[in-house]
């Protein structure tokens, strides 16, 4: 036992630096996912038929293929094939971002559809263009309604980010694995990694809960669905 504790103590700074990289990957991925998700959701709801079809295909693909396969496909395959030099960390963030983008699109789409029809019409009646109406009337409401589901996405992306080690991104798992392979203290080290993820999960969820409270509008809540 003392050996294992000593190993953990020695490697902690190294693991914590990996934790920062995990946080970086997750933040980037959530941001990419947010932008993609909003654009795709708006396209799915308001777009023309061919647009809707293509976006539907995107969502179907990224929701149906495992993250692990996507990481291999993009990092070793497509990015290289396209001649892009993207490092492992950024690749992981992009792949996770594109994946969560597909899920977030579904969340936002549901929220937009849950809004009363009158909202869009009222905005149009005030002389807003469609884009203005979407931007300043529909999205502020839909995004608020989506926050609980979005928080859930965060915890999924965080956990998926643990797969980034397969392409060599220097995050928690990669570093834990590295230390474990030298010290043979597998059990205590992976339990430590688990603890780090556990803390990140609940820390993130608490933050988002706080955000939810701050953004709350009195008497405005999600009716029914989700």
């Amino acid at each position, binding site marked *: 036992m003392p050996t294992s504790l000593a190993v953990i103590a020695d490697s902690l700074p190294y693991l914590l630096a990996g934790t920062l990289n995990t946080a970086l990957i997750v933040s980037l991925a959530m941001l990419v996912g947010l932008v993609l998700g909003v654009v795709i959701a708006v396209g799915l709801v308001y777009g023309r038929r061919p647009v809707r079809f293509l976006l539907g295909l995107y969502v179907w693909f990224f929701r149906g293929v*495992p993250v692990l396969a996507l990481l*291999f*496909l993009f990092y070793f395959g497509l990015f290289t094939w396209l001649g892009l030099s993207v490092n492992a960390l950024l690749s992981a963030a992009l792949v996770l971002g594109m994946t969560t983008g597909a899920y977030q699109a579904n969340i936002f789409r549901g929220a937009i559809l849950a809004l009363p029809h009158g909202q869009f019409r009222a905005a149009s009646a005030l002389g807003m263009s469609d884009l203005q109406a979407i931007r300043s009337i529909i999205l502020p409401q839909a995004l608020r309604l989506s926050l609980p589901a979005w928080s859930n996405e965060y915890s999924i992306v965080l*956990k998926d980010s643990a797969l980034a080690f397969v392409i060599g991104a220097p995050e928690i798992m990669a570093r834990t694995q590295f230390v474990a392979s030298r010290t043979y203290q*597998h*059990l205590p080290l*992976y339990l430590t990694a*688990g603890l780090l993820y556990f803390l990140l999960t609940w820390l993130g969820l608490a933050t988002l809960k706080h955000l939810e409270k701050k953004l709350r509008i009195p008497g405005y809540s999600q009716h029914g669905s989700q």
Partner: protein
Amino acid sequence: MLSLSPFHQELFAALNHGLLISLALIVPSALGGLATGVLLGAARVFGPVWSRRLGDAYAAVFRGTPLVVQLFVLYFGLPGIGISLSPYAAAVTGFILCSGAYQSEYMRGALLSIRQGQYFGAQALGFTDWQTIRWIILPQAVRRALHGCSNEIVYLIKYSSLAYVVTCMELTGEGKTIATEYFRFTEVFAVIGLYYLGLVTLASFLLQRIEQRLAVPGFGRG
């Protein structure tokens, strides 16, 4: 007869073999996860205080940590205390433990959503506690939880690819080997993607059929 290049012949032979292993991972894990989820969910709602606490803690731990960490603990960690699992056993165990935690969450929500009148109605007819749960509460809760549980099974299909990281050679693992050997990642993983898309789409379709079969008019998802 379509003639394939040696590369493609090898690729499809490997992927088809991997697919069988993947199915051998997915089916018992999905069933085991579902059973664990129902029992755990029931323990978290109906059990004595200690079993609720324990169940909640279990779910929080397994939902709060990545599946890949759980698999590493099972496969690389447990030998440290004298328990060695084969790659396949480690993967299935991990999948069942993890998806059981998620399934229990759906079951718990569904069980809690059932009105007290349903218990009263059954007890007034002389049902025992067990009969009430078996014939009245569970059939309703399962219907309410079904949609979430189906989603969870679809997730499980995708996450079965993680068996590869504990060296269980399923679809992803077989593909990775070929891709590395020929250095044709884009092609190989695009095909693997199609295999998973096929599995996921088929499973979603079947699960939706089951949901429709079990649907009761006016009985919503809660």
